[in-house]
């Protein structure tokens, strides 16, 4: 039985469709991250699980019980809000203990519980302070302690780190991960930050414009993107995506007369408008004599320290390659690039979905996912 089950969930505000029918099963104890750009409906989806938004259509079940008609308090979820939403007039102790107070727990028992939870997130020295007297990271921890103290069936996080600076964000990420490992509570975490998503998630739900683009493990999403959107959205630098079509001669035609010899990929795709995708780290610089090498001109170079990114122009199409050599390279210099056909992805340009490229490509992808 799934911990959370969404079936055909839709959200409409007046005439605006915000979420277009989501079907996802979340297993007990899983850490699931909903990732997507702003306005893609990810927060709305989370708030529908929490009970803070009505469900226009479809069904949400938590622990096997349909919760569509239940109030937030009856759903067994705890939530960490983007701006923490701490009660400013209450001390840290009162903030954490409020849910227990509302539930009618006797004071002594409540205080003991609050202290225990506060200790677990190292907040015990600050119990009598007001939220206004705490730093951003401490406030964040109060918000988490407040969620933990209720021992919920499900944790919901709504972009909880977006107000923190970069360093604190990394620290809090580790803290949330450890917390999940020790408590094992099913968690749903919403973010637009892909690094956060990739590092935290057991599984990712990638959303765009109210539609789930792909559900899968971080490595699956990275190495086997199900759509053009996911291919472009996940990964930094983004995947090379070259628009064009396959000819009957086995050449992929793109840009201004560009031709790439890929005889194993083109079958069954002749003349269909597609995008060819390759991860920059799988594009190699090769010598001019290499068979099938793509000739390109360096546009500019981004130095990353351990490696550098070469932004090149191949007959009007942009190609990015990760380069670890120390060769002297500069703008305007010709280079030769190559990649293995099994590392390529092809996306249909009209539907935006991935095109199955046969066994060789699937095997290469599986190997990378499992690596």
């Amino acid at each position: 039985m799934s911990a959370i089950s969404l079936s055909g969930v839709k959200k409409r505000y007046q005439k605006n469709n915000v979420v277009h029918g989501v079907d996802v099963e979340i297993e007990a104890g899983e850490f699931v991250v909903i990732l997507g750009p702003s306005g893609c409906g990810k927060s709305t989806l989370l708030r529908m699980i929490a009970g803070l938004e009505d469900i226009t259509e479809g069904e949400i079940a938590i622990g096997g019980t349909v919760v569509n008609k239940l109030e937030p308090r009856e759903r067994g979820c705890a939530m960490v809000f983007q701006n923490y939403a701490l009660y400013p007039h209450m001390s840290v102790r009162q903030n954490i203990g409020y849910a227990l107070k509302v539930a009618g727990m006797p004071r002594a028992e409540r205080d003991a519980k609050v202290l225990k939870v506060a200790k677990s997130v190292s907040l015990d020295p600050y119990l009598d302070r007001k939220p206004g007297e705490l730093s951003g990271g401490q406030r964040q921890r109060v918000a988490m302690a407040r969620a933990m103290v209720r021992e919920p069936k499900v944790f919901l996080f709504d972009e909880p780190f977006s107000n923190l600076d970069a360093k604190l964000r990394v620290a809090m990420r580790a803290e949330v991960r450890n917390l999940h490992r020790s408590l094992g509570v099913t968690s749903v975490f919403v973010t637009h930050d892909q690094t956060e998503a990739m590092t935290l998630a057991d599984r990712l739900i990638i959303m765009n414009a109210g539609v789930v683009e792909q559900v899968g493990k971080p490595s699956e999403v990275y190495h086997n993107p199900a759509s053009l959107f996911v291919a472009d959205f996940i990964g930094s630098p983004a995947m090379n995506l070259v628009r064009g079509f396959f000819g009957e001669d086995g050449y992929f035609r793109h840009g201004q007369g560009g031709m790439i010899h890929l005889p194993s990929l083109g079958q069954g795709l002749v003349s269909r408008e597609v995008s060819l995708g390759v991860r920059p780290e799988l594009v190699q610089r090769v010598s001019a004599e290499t068979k099938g090498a793509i000739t390109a001109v360096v546009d500019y170079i981004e130095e990353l320290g351990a490696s550098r990114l070469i932004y090149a122009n191949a007959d009007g199409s942009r190609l990015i390659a990760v380069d670890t050599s120390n060769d002297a390279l500069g703008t305007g210099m010709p280079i030769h690039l190559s990649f293995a056909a099994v590392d390529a992805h092809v996306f249909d340009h009209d539907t935006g979905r991935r095109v199955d490229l046969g066994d060789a490509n699937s095997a290469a992808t599986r190997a990378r996912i499992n690596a």
Partner: protein
Amino acid sequence: MERRAFYRNGTLPWLLIGPQLLLVLVFFYWPTSQALYWAFTLEQPWGGGNTWVGWDNFAAIFRDSEYWTVVGRSTFYATVTTLLSMAVALTLAVFADRALKGTKLFQSVYVWPYAIAAPAAGVAFRFIFAPESGLIGAINQMWPGIWNPAINGWQALGMVIVCHAWLGIGYNFIFFLAALQMIPKSLSEAGAMDGARPFRRMLDLQLPLIAPTVFFLLIMNLISSFTDSFGLIDTMTEGGPFGSTEVMVYKIYFDGFKGFDYSGAAAQSIVLMLLVIALTIIQFTWVEKRVHYH
């Protein structure tokens, strides 16, 4: 860094504030100075100017037990009016803030009473409360004679209080609604996640956070109920029956313009002014020190 705008022309600023200054001088400082003059003097019995009598006028009104009855009645009037008006306005604001259906409409409709002049409202309420017809009069058909504010003093006072409270609801409503909407929505949502029902959230989360507004309105309403009741009382009861709706402002009017005791009325108005000043000082000291949540 201090930033200031200067006028090169020295007379322009005076021209700009002139009209306002004139109004304040004519309608506030001039009457106040006249009241002070009358409060410390007494007109000679056979004319021929006023005699300085010091605090005698004040001593006379403070010795009068009837005056203290009126002060007590005014305090009761102000307290009940304030509490009633604020309680109703807060309830309406809480519902309007919850974004129920039709909120947009109610947000403006609830403000309307504030725009009605007190005498007009007084006349309207006289019809509503008329014992022989009116809405409330209907209960006289079931229990004849049970409702008659023309005879029953408490009923008359209650009637005026209800009307005064009703007039203030719009003003209070705007402030309450604004204060409630300043509270981030996520606080209420966090409360809901923590298991608190709407009423509990109002008591535990919203009320403490709008406390500064509550205090501000409390003072404003008290001042208004002490000073603005004349128009209502004059149109609805004229202080009657048997003086049971006579409050401080009405007594000033009555003693001064009906009883021709200018000096006694002036002394009373100085007392009322001091009361309002005291309330204002409390208001300002609180506003200065008021609690700020980040």
